[in-house]
């Protein structure tokens, strides 16, 4: 078990090394892409800065809390896009039968599919994440550690949601764009000031669409730390990850190369 885990880690680092080497074949291009991504993110954040500048606060949230939200969500998305983005291609692999190639490897097929794509430009998201953390005004060793921890847990939830959505392809055809749109909707939910969701909306925000674990809970953990919030986030990430992985393995039972639509 331990040896298997160490082997997976070794493979993971080898894949990341290859990704970096590929990206740096054209150093200028790679760095420009990272810079563009950072500018892209910062310009989106600028829109929110203007809103908060005009309105002061939104149900108690100021730009500082919003900056923390951007720090956590950008770090979580960067981790997803750099190390596990392959999962978004799962519907395509299922419909054209390419999943066979991944199932035949001696490693975990989910691991191999997840690491099959990486977008170097998303290092710009990490850059944005850290810039926003330092702009938030909540700077300190404790908050820094909590920001890193919640970013990782938010990544687990983000990845789990994407995996569940991608697995729809096991049961029905043509779900690539549908999955993309549902995932986008989830991210859009997670990038809003969490305090606009109250009452029933808040329950929906933490359960069916768990975007609250991308915004509300991490920001609360960083700003007013309580063990029960951290425990809630850890349990939520374990729960969603377990559901997603089980859903994937359940979907695999319905998969055959015959899922390929069209004529060869």
């Amino acid at each position, binding site marked *: 078990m331990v040896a298997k885990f160490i082997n997976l880690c070794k493979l993971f680092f080898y894949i990341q090394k290859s990704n970096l080497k590929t990206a740096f074949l054209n150093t200028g*291009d790679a760095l420009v892409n990272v810079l563009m991504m950072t500018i892209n993110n910062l310009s989106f954040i600028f829109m929110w800065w203007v809103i908060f500048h005009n309105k002061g606060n939104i149900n108690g949230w100021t730009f500082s809390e919003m900056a923390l939200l951007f720090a956590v969500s950008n770090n979580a998305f960067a981790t997803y896009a750099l190390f596990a983005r392959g999962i978004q291609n799962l519907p395509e692999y299922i419909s054209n039968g390419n999943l066979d190639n991944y199932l035949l490897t001696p490693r975990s097929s989910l691991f191999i599919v997840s690491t099959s794509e990486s977008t170097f430009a998303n290092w710009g998201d990490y850059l944005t994440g850290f810039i926003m953390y330092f702009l938030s005004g909540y700077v300190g060793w404790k908050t820094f550690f909590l920001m890193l921890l919640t970013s990782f847990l938010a990544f687990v939830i983000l990845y789990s949601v994407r995996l569940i959505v991608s697995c729809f392809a096991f049961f029905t055809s043509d779900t690539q764009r549908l999955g993309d749109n*549902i995932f986008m909707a989830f991210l859009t939910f997670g990038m809003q*000031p969490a305090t*606009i969701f109250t009452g029933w909306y808040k329950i929906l925000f933490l359960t069916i669409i768990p975007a609250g674990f991308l915004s509300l809970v991490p920001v609360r953990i960083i700003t007013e730390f309580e063990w029960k919030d951290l425990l809630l986030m850890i349990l939520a990430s374990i729960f969603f990850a377990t559901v997603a992985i089980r859903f994937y393995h359940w979907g695999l039972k319905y998969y055959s190369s015959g899922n390929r639509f069209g004529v060869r």
Partner: protein
Amino acid sequence: MNKAFSKYLNLFQISFKQAWGNKANLSGMLFFLFILIFIYNRLWEVIGIQTGENNLNSTFIWYLLFAEAVILSSPKIERILFEDIRSGTMAYYINKPISFFLMRYVESLGNMTVCYLLIVGFGTIITLVFTGKPPFTLWQYPLIVLFCYISGTLNTLLYAGVGLCGLWLHSIRTLGMAIERLAFIFGGAIFPLTIYPEWFVEIAKWTPFYSIYYLTIKLVYDFSWANLGYVILLNSFWSLLIISFITYAYTKLSKKVNIYGG
């Protein structure tokens, strides 16, 4: 002239039918639209209550609906053209009795039209449910729909220009994203430019996004014949510039491209 026109009309019809047939894609898009309108309606409702501004959500959500109609209906033509250039597909079409660029553009328009009509149709219903009375009159509605559609075709043309940058760039993905984001901000795609500081609006005025997005969509809550005339004038100017760039890039590209890729 008529024959040439009918070729493109047929292409338009084929891509329209293809897009219409892609039900999963369309339902995903409408689901996303619903979520977007729901979230931002909630946001402006909360801000409206907080600042005591009634109907704030109505103005901003109708604005958002037409902004999303222009943006979400855009068919990512830049990626299609870039792939065609990189893979060499373009070279196979270049000696055919049809303009490769117009073919791709008209196909994209067919696709865009389906998405646009669905977004406006479905969006109008849900926005009415969420906000109640719209900020425009009934007779202004078809004009707003028409002019936002024209903006959508211009937006597609702009992204076609981005796709042709594949002639000079190794990858256009990030450039496309950066242009998209600039359009979001300078075009006021989520929030109207009225909320931005004056210095920022002055900069935005020098970009095509100001007229293609903001000025046209602003007709939703600030309709007047003078504004409409200004929209026509500025959009004509920017479309001339975009077409000039596309003609220049496409002429260069046609000479360079081969079946092994551009």
